């Protein structure tokens, strides 16, 4: 055997077939044909070369400084149906060669690499898709819960409100007991709705903690004041102790901290029949790094002397829907969500929650949380924010003009009921469009507006009212949104639309009156004005005042229509008659209206007309 044959045999065994290019499209196999080389011409044997040879020819004609031009891998089925993998290389030197290589190992390496990249990419797509689906599902669930919460709150608003109004009426002892039960169960139901909503928010990661300065002792006291009512009713003593080393003013979410304490105290009250409840706050002994000057890691313990928790349930009581014993739900009530919500809130506060208990002699629920320590300036803010203590807010004895927009007749009836002892004048409308129309005709001291209404919703109506105020350079009217949406976004939506504040239904009488009290500037509201008139005039003053009230509408129409002559005439008439009937202010305002109409001073005309309207709304004849 000659050397070339041996060489060819060796190359073939190694997986190479070497062809010398003897001319364009003409190739000569060197040595023996390897057993993997198919029969036929080169391109019949390897159809892939149909696309590679033109590139190889280009290379051989113009190799530049390259000595080799490789092809991609290709796969084709060989004898016996076995898949074989190949690659080709054009070589250029003194002679030109085409090397076809049967490449198992290199192909497998390249494939593992690509396979890994593709598998990873497909897995990434799958994860992204799943996460999107999960997000959508969570979103849908949140929307469903928000919607349900809205649907439940709307009738509860009327239900609880009516019970509250009924409570204020003359009732027999038996009736009073019925109403008391009705109110208490209503409160329970509302707590359950709130728990479910809170839980869904926590679950969807929608709760963001506030970072505001607060007085820790105030929060503990508030929680004890609220929870203490029931505890004391059961004959339990209630104590609290805040270690002196604990900073007085912290920065964090006082509302959520109070919620945790209230929940733990509520449970403690539920499961304790005699003895005491106590709250302890101390620096967290597990966090010695906390300096208590800028950063405070605190340990809270809410302890009771109740039935205790069995040892095997201590770790599961913080799971959702898991009360230590299903029978507890029947006996003590509750959704079993409170502890689960508390656990998530504590975690958001950078802490942990756990339970310790000696069955039969009591339990302690411990939690830790981290806060920043409030600087002096922010500590002052915390005190400013503290609401003034009042037993029961009472509406000022003023004749406020209120525009009330709610499509639910029973809710309008409720608000009217809440304000029935005040001198307020309430205009009721059942949609946003009517509210806007009224708002343009009349200056109101406060607008109470529902969010979702037919024709025009409360948000759009509020926006239009704010735009109207701007156009007419009017001072902003307090607009309070009264909605059954309890999510924070709902509040943001109201404020974004221009509402002054957002009250969530069910609305308590005290909450409503307090809000009106807070947002209606005293100067805006005119006290009720008592005027005594001579007895012979009494039969006619009613008609006189009624006609002047009619003039207000005429004046507004004339102002809108630019009919200053009409305004001047009406002003002149009032100036001439008011004093004669005993209403000196009508004469004064009439003169101002007449003068401003003469001067063409629209701003003054508008102010005077509103002054007249307010005076007419407040004046009462003795």
């Amino acid at each position, binding site marked *: 055997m000659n050397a070339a044959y041996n060489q060819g045999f060796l190359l073939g065994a190694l997986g190479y077939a070497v062809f010398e290019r003897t001319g364009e499209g003409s190739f000569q196999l060197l040595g023996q044909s390897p057993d993997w080389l198919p029969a036929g011409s080169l391109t019949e044997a390897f159809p892939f070369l149909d*696309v590679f040879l033109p590139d190889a020819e280009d290379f051989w004609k113009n190799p530049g400084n390259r000595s080799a031009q490789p092809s991609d891998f290709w*796969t084709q089925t060989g004898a016996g149906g076995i898949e074989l993998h190949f690659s080709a290389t054009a070589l250029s030197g003194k002679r030109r060669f085409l090397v076809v290589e049967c490449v198992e190992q290199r192909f497998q390496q*390249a*494939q593992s690499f690509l396979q890994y*990249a593709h598998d990873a*990419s497909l897995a990434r797509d799958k994860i992204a898709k799943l996460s999107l689906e999960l997000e959508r599902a969570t979103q849908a669930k949140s929307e469903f819960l928000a919607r349900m919460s809205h649907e439940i709150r709307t009738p509860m608003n009327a239900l609880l409100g009516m019970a509250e109004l009924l409570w204020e009426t003359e009732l027999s002892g038996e009736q009073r007991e019925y109403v008391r039960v009705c109110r208490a169960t209503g409160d329970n139901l509302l707590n359950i709705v709130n728990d479910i909503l809170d839980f869904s928010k926590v679950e969807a990661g929608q709760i963001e903690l506030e970072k505001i300065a607060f007085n820790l002792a105030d929060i503990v006291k508030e929680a004890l004041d609220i929870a203490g009512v029931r505890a004391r009713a059961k004959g339990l003593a209630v104590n609290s102790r805040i270690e002196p080393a604990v900073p007085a003013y912290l920065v964090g979410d006082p509302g959520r901290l109070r919620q945790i304490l209230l929940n733990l105290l509520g449970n403690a009250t539920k499961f304790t029949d005699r003895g005491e409840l106590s709250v302890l706050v101390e620096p967290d002994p597990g966090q010695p790094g906390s300096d208590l000057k800028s950063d405070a890691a605190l340990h809270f313990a809410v302890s009771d002397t109740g039935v205790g928790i069995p040892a095997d349930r201590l770790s599961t009581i913080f799971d959702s829907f898991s009360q230590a014993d299903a029978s507890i739900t029947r006996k003590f009530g509750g959704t079993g969500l409170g502890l689960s919500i508390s656990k998530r809130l504590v975690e958001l506060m950078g802490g942990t929650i756990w339970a310790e208990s000696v069955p039969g002699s009591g339990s302690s629920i411990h939690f830790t949380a981290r806060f920043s320590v409030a600087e002096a300036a922010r500590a002052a803010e915390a005190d400013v924010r503290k609401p003034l203590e009042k037993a029961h807010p009472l509406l000022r004895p003023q004749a406020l003009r209120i525009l009330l927009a709610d499509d639910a007749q029973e809710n309008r009836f409720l608000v009217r009921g809440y304000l029935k002892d005040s001198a307020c004048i309430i205009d009721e409308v059942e949609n946003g469009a009517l509210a806007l129309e009224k708002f343009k005709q009349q200056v109101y001291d406060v607008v109470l507006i529902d969010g979702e209404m037919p024709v025009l919703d409360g948000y759009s109506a509020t926006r239009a009212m704010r735009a109207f105020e701007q156009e007419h350079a009017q001072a902003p009217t307090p607009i309070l949104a009264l909605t059954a949406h309890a999510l924070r976004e709902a509040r943001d939506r109201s404020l974004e639309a221009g509402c002054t504040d957002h009250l969530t239904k069910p609305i308590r009488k005290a909450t409503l009156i307090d809000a009106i009290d807070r947002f209606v500037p005293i100067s805006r509201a005119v006290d009720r004005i008592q005027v005594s008139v001579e007895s012979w005039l009494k039969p006619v003053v009613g008609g006189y005042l009624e006609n002047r009230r009619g003039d207000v509408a005429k004046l507004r129409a004339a102002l809108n229509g630019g009919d200053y002559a009409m305004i001047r005439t009406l002003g002149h008439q009032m100036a001439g008659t008011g004093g004669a009937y005993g209403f000196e202010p009508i004469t004064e305002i009439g003169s101002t209206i007449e003068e401003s109409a003469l001067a063409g001073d629209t701003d003054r005309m508008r102010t005077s007309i509103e002054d007249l309207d307010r005076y007419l709304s407040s004046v009462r004849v003795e």
Partner: protein
Amino acid sequence: MLKKKICMVGEFGVGKTSLVRRFVDSIFSERYLTTVGVKIDRKDVTVGSASVTLMLWDLAGEDELTPLNLSHLRGASGYILVVDGCRASSLKKAVELQQRIAERLGPLPFVLVLNKADLRDLWEVKDTVVSEYGWPTFETSAKAGSGVEEMFLALAASLLSVNAAAEDPIE
């Protein structure tokens, strides 16, 4: 016998290799094995009265690392744009490839294939969007076998009619 080169193109993992496997060997494998370079298979078919050998060039799916080598389409009579109905991105990729191929090789006959019809409930690709392109479109399932043969034969038939038109110049 007449030979026609048909290229399978599309994003990786859309089922190009599985479609060929189903058509040539009537087999489907659940295991995803990515194609490296080009996989060449052949199948003799009869379309009407004509017999033709289809040379099926299954080109590695394009990804971020390996762009499609358009020179592999050299000499092709037509191509199949394969889309995974479950992945909207694969339709986008198919549209982009069609533009690139048309720019490089001129107007070649092709069909659009929406594969994985067995998972139709999970499809992201919407029929209304697909129909906007006005391309000959087939729904296939390499797994269940539905639509696969019809699709290949329809393309083969259209290649032969192109062929016939070329061979019978208008008088």
